[in-house]
C-alpha cells in the first residue's frame, strides 16, 4: 500500500438500536467515508452530534463503542489493514501505535489508581519501556504539557488534580508510548474557555514536538482551526467537505460548511436599562448548608423589563448559585431579592403562587427537566392548569398556540420527550416556561448542550419570544459568543463576585479588568494563527510586567 499513516477506505459503520416498544433495528451511522492522513499531520474531524466523528475516530483503533459495529470498508494503519486483524495484533495497535484522548479525562481516568500508574500502563504492559524509563518519559511529558510539579504530580489520584490538569495528564497518557497516531476526541470541550486555551496550546506544542499524527475531533470549528493542517466536515455519517484548514475556514465550498463558519456571527443590539428594574439582586451573600465559606459575596445586579441580562463566568464562579438564590432554593445569608417593586421571601416556601408564576426557569439539560412518561401536551399543559386552572378545549387551544410560538406546531402535542431531538426538547421547555406567562425567565446554560447551529436557532427563538411576550431573561452562560448574541446587560462573575457589570457595549469595550480581559481574549476566533497570537501577546504582557 501507500506509506500513509492512516488510510480509511469507504468505511461503513452501523449500530443496533433498541427503540422502546419496538423490535431492535440496525441503522447506519457512517455511510462510506474515505480519507488519508500522512505521518505527523493533523486532520480535524468536525460536525454536529450524530455526524459520526467520534465513531470514525475510534474506528482508527478498530474499536466500536457500545453496540457500534464496523460493517464495511478498510482501515489501514502503518500499512496494514486493522479491521480484520488478530486480537493480539489489535492489542499491539491500541495503546502503542494509536492512542486516544477522550472528552472527559475526569471520567476516563480510573479513580482507584494513581495517575502515573495509568499513564505508563500501556507502554510497560506491552514491554515497550521499562517501568523506570516510562516514568521518566511521563515526567518529561508532564513538564512539556505545563503541569505543575511534574516530578510528583503522577503520584496523585485523579480527583486530586483539576479538570484542565487531568486533561493534560490524559494527553501525556496518550503520548507516553510514542504512538504514531493520537485520536483527540473533543479534548477541550468540557473545559472552561480560560483553561481551554492553555490545554489547546499544550496539545498543539506536544503534537509539533513529538511529530505524531493526529485526528482532532470537535464540534467547534474555531478550535480545530488552531490545531489542524486539514479539516474534514462531516454530517450525518457523510463527508461534506475535505480540504486544508485555510480553504475550509476562508473559502468553504459547501453551504453546510459556510453555515458552520458563520454560526457565531449573530449579534443583538443592546438596549439601555430602564428606570424600573423588574428584578433586583441586592448585596446577596450566600453559602451552602454545612459549609463554612461564602460562595457568593455581595452580588448586585438588575434585570430590566423585556431585556436580557447575561451572567457569564467559568464553572464555580457562582452563576448558578445566584439563580438558586433568586428562585428561593438557597436563601441568602445577607441581602435580598426584589421583584417588580416587592421584596420576595428568601425561602421558596414563603413565596406566593403568583411569585412562582412570574419567575420561571429553563435548564441546561432539557431531557432530564421533563418527565419522560408525559407527552409534550401534558408537560406544557401542567402550568396552564396549575396557574390558570385551564381545562379541556381551552387548555388545548393554548397549548397549540404555544407550540406554534416555539415553531413546532400541533403535531407535537402527543409526542413523548424521547421522540424529540435535543433542540426540540429545549423548545418544549421554553414553551412550558412561557405557559405561566412569566415576567422573568432564568435561562441556565440553555444552549450549552446543543450543537452550534441548533443553539443559534434557540437563541433566535428566545429573542423573538422576548419581543412577543415582553419577558425578561436572566441568561446564565459560560459562552461569550452567546452573550453578545443575546444580552442587553452583562454581569461577569468570578469566584462568587461580580467583577464587571453594566450595559453590553460598556462591558465589552476597553479598558478591561484583568479577568474580563483574560476571559474575552480566550474565546477562540475562527481564523488561522489566533492561538499563537494570543499566547504571544500574553507572554509579552507578562514579560513587560
Amino acid at each position, binding site marked *: 500500500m501507500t506509506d500513509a499513516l492512516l488510510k480509511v477506505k469507504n468505511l461503513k459503520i452501523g449500530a443496533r438500536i433498541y427503540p422502546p416498544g419496538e423490535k431492535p433495528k440496525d441503522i447506519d451511522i457512517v455511510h462510506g467515508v474515505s480519507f488519508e492522513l500522512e505521518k505527523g499531520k493533523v486532520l480535524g474531524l468536525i460536525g454536529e452530534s450524530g455526524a459520526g466523528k467520534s465513531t470514525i475516530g475510534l474506528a482508527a*483503533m478498530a*474499536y466500536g*463503542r457500545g453496540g457500534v459495529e464496523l460493517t464495511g470498508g478498510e482501515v489501514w494503519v502503518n500499512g496494514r489493514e486493522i479491521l480484520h486483524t488478530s486480537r493480539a495484533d*489489535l*492489542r*499491539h*495497535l*491500541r*495503546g*502503542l501505535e494509536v*492512542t*486516544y484522548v*477522550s472528552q*472527559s479525562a475526569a*471520567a*476516563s*481516568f*480510573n*479513580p*482507584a*489508581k494513581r495517575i502515573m500508574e*495509568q499513564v505508563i*500502563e*500501556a507502554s510497560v*504492559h*506491552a514491554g515497550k519501556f521499562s517501568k523506570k524509563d516510562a516514568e521518566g518519559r511521563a515526567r518529561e511529558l508532564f513538564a512539556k504539557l505545563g503541569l505543575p510539579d511534574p516530578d510528583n504530580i503522577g503520584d*496523585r*489520584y485523579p*480527583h*486530586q488534580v483539576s479538570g484542565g490538569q487531568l486533561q493534560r495528564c490524559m494527553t501525556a*497518557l496518550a503520548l507516553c508510548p510514542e504512538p504514531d497516531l493520537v485520536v483527540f476526541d473533543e479534548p477541550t470541550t468540557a473545559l472552561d474557555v480560560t483553561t481551554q486555551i492553555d490545554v489547546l496550546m499544550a496539545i498543539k506544542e506536544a503534537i509539533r514536538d513529538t511529530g505524531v499524527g493526529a485526528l482532532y475531533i470537535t464540534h467547534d470549528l474555531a478550535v480545530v482551526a488552531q490545531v489542524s493542517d486539514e479539516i474534514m466536515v462531516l454530517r450525518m455519517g457523510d463527508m461534506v467537505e475535505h480540504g486544508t484548514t485555510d480553504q475550509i475556514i476562508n473559502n468553504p465550498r459547501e453551504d453546510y460548511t459556510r453555515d458552520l463558519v458563520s454560526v457565531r456571527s449573530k449579534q443583538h443590539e443592546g438596549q439601555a436599562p430602564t428606570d424600573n428594574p423588574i428584578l433586583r439582586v441586592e448585596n446577596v451573600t450566600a453559602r451552602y448548608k454545612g459549609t463554612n465559606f461564602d460562595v457568593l459575596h455581595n452580588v448586585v445586579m438588575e434585570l430590566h423589563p423585556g431585556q436580557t441580562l447575561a451572567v457569564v463566568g467559568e464553572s464555580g464562579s457562582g452563576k448558578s448559585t445566584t439563580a438558586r438564590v433568586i428562585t428561593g432554593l438557597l436563601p441568602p445569608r445577607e441581602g435580598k431579592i426584589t421583584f417588580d417593586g416587592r421584596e420576595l421571601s428568601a425561602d421558596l416556601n414563603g413565596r406566593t403562587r403568583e411569585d412562582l408564576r412570574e419567575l420561571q426557569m429553563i435548564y441546561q439539560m432539557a431531557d432530564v427537566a421533563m418527565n419522560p412518561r408525559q407527552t409534550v401536551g401534558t408537560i406544557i399543559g401542567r402550568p396552564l392548569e396549575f396557574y390558570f386552572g385551564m381545562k379541556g378545549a381551552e387548555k388545548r387551544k393554548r397549548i397549540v398556540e404555544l407550540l406554534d410560538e416555539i415553531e413546532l406546531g400541533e403535531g407535537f402535542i402527543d409526542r413523548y420527550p424521547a421522540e424529540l431531538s435535543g433542540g426540540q426538547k429545549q423548545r418544549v421547555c421554553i414553551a412550558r416556561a412561557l405557559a405561566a406567562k412569566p415576567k422573568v425567565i432564568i435561562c441556565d446554560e440553555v444552549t450549552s448542550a446543543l450543537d452550534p447551529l441548533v443553539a443559534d436557532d434557540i437563541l433566535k427563538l428566545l429573542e423573538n419570544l422576548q419581543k412577543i411576550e415582553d419577558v425578561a431573561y436572566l441568561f446564565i452562560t459560560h459562552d461569550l459568543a452567546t452573550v453578545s448574541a443575546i444580552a442587553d446587560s452583562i454581569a461577569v462573575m468570578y469566584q462568587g463576585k461580580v467583577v464587571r457589570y453594566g450595559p453590553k457595549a460598556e462591558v465589552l469595550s476597553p479598558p478591561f479588568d484583568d479577568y474580563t480581559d483574560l476571559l474575552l481574549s480566550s474565546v477562540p476566533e475562527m481564523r488561522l494563527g489566533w492561538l499563537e497570537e494570543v499566547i504571544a501577546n500574553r507572554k509579552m504582557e507578562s514579560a513587560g510586567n
Partner: protein
Amino acid sequence: MHPVLKLIAQRLALGILLLLAASLLIFAGTQILPGDVAQSILGQSATPEALANLRAELGLNEPAMSRYFSWLAGAIQGDLGTALTNGQDITKSLGGRLKNTLFLAFWAAVVAVPLAIFLGLLAVRFRERWPDKLISAVTLASISVPEFLIGYVLMYIVGVKLGWAPTVATVYDSMSFLEKLNAIALPVAVLTMVVLAHMMRMTRAAILNVMQSAYIETAELKGLSSFQVIYRHAFPNAIAPVVNVVMLNLAYLVVGVVVVEVVFVYPGMGQYLVDHVSKRDVPVVQACGLIFAAVYIGLNMVADIVSILANPRLRHPK
C-alpha cells in the same frame, strides 16, 4: 484528624450503640416470652413455695430494668451468667461452641469467597455467553434448594455411596487438625453452595456496573486483554459492594448455620442454641443472641470500614 479516622471512629461508635440497642431488644424479647422459667425447671408438680423460692433465688422478682443492667454489666465483663438447666457457666460452655462455629464458618469462607469472586470475574469476562449462563444457573440452583436437603443429598452420595467424607461432622478437641478438616468437609460444601450464588452474582453485577465507565474504555484502548481490564481496572472500583455482600454472607455463615449444624450433628453455637430454646433456658438464649448480634454488627462494620478505605477520595483527600 484525618477524615478517614474520623469516619471510622464514627462507625465504631455507631456499632457499639447498635449492639447496646440489640442487647436491649434481646432482653426485652426473652422477657415477654410466655411461660415461667421456675415453672419449667421444677415441672408441673412443683409446690407454690418451691416456685416462690426458686424465683427469689434466680432473681426473677427484681424489676426488669435492674436485671437488664446487671446482666449487661456481667456480659461486658465476659460473664454471661449460668445456665438454668445444668448450672454450668455459660461463658465457658459457649466458648468451645463458638470456637467450633467459627472454625466451620472460617473454612466455608476460605472456600466460598475466592471461588465466588473468581466465578463473578469469569461471568463478567464471558457475559451473556454460555460460561456466564452456566455459572448463574448452577449457583442459583444451589441457593434455591433448601440447605438441609443439599446436606442429606451430599451425605447420601458423597458420604454413603462414595465414602469420601464422614456423614457426621462431630469434632472433638482430641482430633488432629486434618481429622477435623475431614470431618467438616461436607458441611463446608453445603455452606459454600448456599452462600456462593449471592456473592457471585453481586460481584458480577458490581463489576458489570463499573464496566460501563469511561475509564474501562480507556483501559481497553490501551490494548489490555479483557481479563486484565476486569481485574486491574474494574475490580478495584467494585470492592465496596463486593465486600458488603461478602460480609453479609460471612455473618450468615456464623449466625445462620443452625440447620446445617443440626443436620451434621456439629457441636457449634446453633445446636447449643436450639437445645436451650427448647428447654426455656433464658440466660443461654440471651447469651447466644448477644453473640450473634455482635458477630453480625462487627462484620458489617468491617464491611463499612473497608468500603471507606477502598474509596481513594476519602483515603487521599485533596
